[in-house]
């Protein structure tokens, strides 16, 4: 006891220094916003490291083997869950009309992956070449448009979202005026419809439909409603701000639109 006391007295300055430093750091972390943020950030970064070190010690106490057995069992059980299977049942729906030939068929798919929200959004569907999905086909949701197929593999397909800076969709109004629908990368709720001639009367809340001119989407699918009208000076055109009726970033179910006449129409388009 006396020795401890002597050590304490001999190093009084160190203990004072150490104790006061603790007080200082407590003050810094509690009363300075920048430093407290850095401290919590550092803790979140290295806390994991600290905990994993603790785990190593725990495992060392003969839990390693036990864990391994449980992990394998888990993996086995997980493989048996429905999510682990690639669904091969095909839900295909089509517009049935006796008087006309079938043109569009719809293939039900699910969005299995998507990019984080950014100016160039894409998503992945769980249907691919096996079921006739090819690049250039449109993707629609329960309401509204979702995107256009971009790349395909045998089981999956990647689509560029309509919320992608490169997307151009032919869209028009009920009165047959049409233009190009694109996204400016700013607000996921709005797209802009350009190239509508200035002399066409447009009213707010008019519905914007697909024209079907590009053979990607069928004619007449509602895309959204007009929220703002802006005449572009000097071009003779007006720019319409379109409020989308769906939220393409949150749709889970999607239908791939397969145009049975696409090839034929494309031949026509490319013929000089």
């Amino acid at each position, binding site marked *: 006891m006396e020795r401890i006391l002597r050590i304490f007295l001999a190093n009084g*300055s160190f203990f*004072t220094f150490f104790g*006061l430093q603790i007080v200082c750091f407590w003050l810094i972390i509690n009363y*300075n916003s920048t*430093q407290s943020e850095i*401290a919590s950030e550092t803790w979140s970064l290295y806390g994991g490291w600290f905990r994993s070190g603790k785990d190593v010690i725990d495992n060392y106490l003969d839990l390693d083997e036990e864990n391994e057995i449980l992990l394998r069992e888990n993996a086995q059980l997980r493989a048996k869950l429905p999510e682990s299977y690639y669904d091969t049942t095909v839900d295909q729906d089509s517009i049935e009309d006796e008087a006309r030939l079938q043109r569009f068929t719809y293939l039900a798919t699910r969005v299995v992956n998507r990019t984080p929200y950014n100016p160039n959004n894409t998503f992945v569907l769980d249907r691919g070449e096996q079921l006739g999905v090819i690049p250039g086909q449109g993707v629609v949701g329960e309401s509204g448009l979702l995107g256009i197929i971009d790349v395909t593999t045998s089981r999956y397909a990647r689509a560029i979202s309509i919320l992608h800076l490169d997307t151009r969709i032919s869209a028009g109004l009920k009165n047959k005026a049409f233009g190009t629908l694109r996204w400016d990368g700013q607000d996921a709720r709005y797209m802009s419809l350009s190239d509508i001639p200035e002399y066409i009367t447009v009213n707010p809340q008019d519905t914007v439909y697909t024209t079907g001119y590009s053979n990607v989407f069928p004619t007449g699918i509602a895309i959204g409603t007009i929220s703002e009208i802006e005449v572009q000076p000097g071009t003779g055109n007006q720019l319409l701000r379109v409020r989308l009726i769906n939220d393409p970033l949150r749709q889970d179910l999607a239908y791939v639109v397969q145009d049975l006449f696409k090839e034929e129409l494309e031949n026509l388009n490319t013929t000089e």
Partner: protein
Amino acid sequence: MRGNSLGANVGRFVLLFFLQVFVFRQVSLGWSGKEYLFIWLYPLFIAALPLRTPRPGVVALAFLAGLSVDIAYGTLGLHASAATATGYFRQFPLKFLEPKDGYKTKSTPEGRDLGQAWWVRYLAYVTVFYCVFYFSVEAFSPVFWQDILLKCLLSIPVSYLLSLILVSFLRPRL
């Protein structure tokens, strides 16, 4: 302002505190929204505490000095931390800068026994230690080592020179 009496030390603290808070606080240079040059004068108070002060006392007084500067600067804990560390660190340069015949702890009227050359070396240690420690604590993460380095490189020479000039006026008796 000479001597090592309680009054002299209190006076020195008041003077340095006011210079620090009311004059040199206004001085800060930087670019692109960040300040890199600061002038820290009050560590001189810690450096100039009498040699006979018990070491824990030096640490505690340094803490109080740092804390009062903190309150003026609105950075509670930062200066206190750096000052406390400087107060603890002070004993090391004092130990190896000790003259051959030891420090004369008995006060002599003019106190020329520790000349300007001695102060030049001693203050360099104290200022560098204080600045490095303070900017490290301020950045609070080694990730910002570039900022720390830049601030130290800019602030140390200016703080050091000003401290030297000031100490030649105050020339405390240790």
